[in-house]
């Protein structure tokens, strides 16, 4: 299996960079492509796993090809199309294009060519070869819930923290973090960040041993503070105004059909949650896990975050509830780890 993690040096020397695209511009393209997958996926009621898988394909694809060769929005559609099939939530290609079109300016949509569906079909084969048919992708969501299950502390605060971390994971898709770190590490870091911002103190955790300095030592070895901060900053940078300005638009935008959802930029990255960075960026939670029934569905933005209604679960059921969440989190396709024999 290919190794999908890169160090920062590799991430700067990409095919796009070698093709004359600055790192800032490439990062913006990646962000726009990822956001577009998230928006299109949400509109189609695709689950967060499908959306996240599509975004990871997208990031991996551009480690082998330049944004000049393959315009980002059609690649994004193709990634979502393939992810839909892989995650057992298939959507018809023409429906994806239908939903995607109004999200783009005419000029951007023109990169889809004369026969958008055929373009996506051709691109799918290139995508599959590029990602070496390494279809199954893991995401931080499941780990987030698994880790949260072990933390002890004020339950309301825990819930808030998990919601915030969830939103950070959504937003982290717009960064290249999935090309740098395993989902476990990202989950730890973004829970750490959410804990800080939501003032949730982890006093104790299940499974604690004297060897543990912090709760995450239980799950991932050798995580340094430097690493955690580096990851957190990559996500927080998404919310800082400067990074949103770099690079020209390609093609330049004359009009935007997108809702001007990011006009309100957060003045700072300090909580409380009412002005939390989360609210400004994650205008659209990808998907809300829960409601007691067990189906996933998209929800209108509610303070930006994802609502995990642990509080609605009866009695001592936070853990049980989280357990359940995890199981739909894996969507229809869930293979347990290689075992037995």
């Amino acid at each position, binding site marked *: 299996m290919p190794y999908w993690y890169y160090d920062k040096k590799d991430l700067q020397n990409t095919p796009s960079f070698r093709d004359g695209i600055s790192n800032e511009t490439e990062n913006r393209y990646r962000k726009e492509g990822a956001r577009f997958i998230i928006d299109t996926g949400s509109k189609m009621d695709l689950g967060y796993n499908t959306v996240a898988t599509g975004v990871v394909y997208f990031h991996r694809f551009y480690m082998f090809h330049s944004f*000049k060769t393959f315009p980002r929005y059609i690649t994004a559609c193709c990634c979502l199309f393939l992810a839909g099939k*892989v995650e057992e939530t*298939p959507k018809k290609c023409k429906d994806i294009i239908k939903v995607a079109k109004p999200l783009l300016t005419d000029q951007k949509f023109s990169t889809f060519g004369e026969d958008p569906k055929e373009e996506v079909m051709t691109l799918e084969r290139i995508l599959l070869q590029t990602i070496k048919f390494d279809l199954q992708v893991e995401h931080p969501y499941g780990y987030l819930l698994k880790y949260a299950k072990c933390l002890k502390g004020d339950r309301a605060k825990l819930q808030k923290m998990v919601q915030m971390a969830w939103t950070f994971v959504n937003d982290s898709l717009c960064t290249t973090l999935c090309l740098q770190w395993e989902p476990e590490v990202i989950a730890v870091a973004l829970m750490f960040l959410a804990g800080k911002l939501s003032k949730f103190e982890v006093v104790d955790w299940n499974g604690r041993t004297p060897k543990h300095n912090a709760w995450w030592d239980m799950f991932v070895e050798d995580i340094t503070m430097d690493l955690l901060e580096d990851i957190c900053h990559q996500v927080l940078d998404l919310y800082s105004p400067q990074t949103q*300005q770099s690079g020209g638009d390609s093609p330049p*935008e004359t009009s935007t059909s997108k809702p001007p959802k*990011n006009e309100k930029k957060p003045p700072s990255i300090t909580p409380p949650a009412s002005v939390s960075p989360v609210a400004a960026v994650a205008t659209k939670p990808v998907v809300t896990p829960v409601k007691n029934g067990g189906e996933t569905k998209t929800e209108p933005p509610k303070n930006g975050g994802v609502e995990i209604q642990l509080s609605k679960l009866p009695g001592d059921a936070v853990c049980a509830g989280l357990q359940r969440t995890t*199981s739909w989190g894996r969507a229809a396709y869930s293979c347990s780890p290689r075992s037995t*024999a």
Partner: protein
Amino acid sequence: MQNVNAPREPAPVLSTSSTILNMREKEKYIEDFDFPFCDESSKYEKVAKIGQGTFGEVFKARARNSSKKFVAMKKVLMDNEKEGFPITALREIKILQLLKHDNVVNLIEICRTKATLHNKYRSTFYLVFDFCEHDLAGLLSNVNVKFSLGEIKKVMQQLLNGLYYIHSNKILHRDMKAANVLITKNGVLKLADFGLARAFSVAKAGQVNKYTNRVVTLWYRPPELLLGDRNYGPPVDMWGAGCIMAEMWTRSPIMQGPTEQQQLILISQLCGSCTPDVWPGVENLDLYNKMELPKGQKRKVKERLKPYVKDPYGCDLLDKLLQLDPAKRYDADTALNHDFFWTDPMPCDLANMLAQHTQSMFEYLAPPRRPGHLRHHHHVAAQGKPAPVTDSGYQDRVF
């Protein structure tokens, strides 16, 4: 993250669609791009067509860099696909990448043909597997191939080991049949063709799985599927294992119904009537009232299989696998612990027996097996077709 302000920087190197490659340039790019992770299928040389999978043809091929290394290449048929790369093929790939076990066919890699103008810049893909010399249906259709009781035990033990492994990994095969059971010349059994396989979840209270029940080749299809169950699980494969086990002695599929209705009747005639008495809950299945279910049939599994099987432990295990009620059917683990595998003669290696047969035996290549029915002994004509000898020492019959 929409940038609503005009860009502050001077227009960077690339700005508009003019920087995007035109069609010709892109085609050239695709043609020239050396995908580092996906080799060209030309590294293999096709030797013979050996079968027809769920979604495409299967070829035997030889690695060009080593005349000894043989593989099976399964073509991914995409001609009639409106939705691109078939979801069934994606499933199979995903599942095969997950499953690594001695009794599961090994996926080596996925290869592609070069994208050229000739194929409209669309590659064809092949799944490349380790080559197995035989399939069980092919072996059983050849009267010269004789299995001793110990050898039958070895076949079944490996088959159940494979099923135990895939079920532990939450995968249902859903197309168990003799033709999908491969055996190498060294006697190692491999479950193959995961084209219908899927992941399953253990149904929790208040949550019902909805899988299609139009799976499994009719003759190996368990009664719950025939009655429209959509919340099934590993027992569907165990029924198939039972049918295959019986076939080790009868040498042809034991229940060859021409229609779903007929298949149910054949099952009832062998395993008894499907009643809530022997199978609590059967009355709730969708088709329970829509299908004709023979009444008053007695269970005759042991009685009818005894003339073939003779070994009482074998008869007993068959009886446990061919249970109408999926909840009572043995799972792979329980079956592996059955006395059948732990009494004399113990399971014995197949390599010696197979060494006497130097011709690859695949059902695809074999003449159709006579419609066999229980109770009727039948004779399959020996096949004496000479074929070119290949480097592997095996003859490939090419039709």
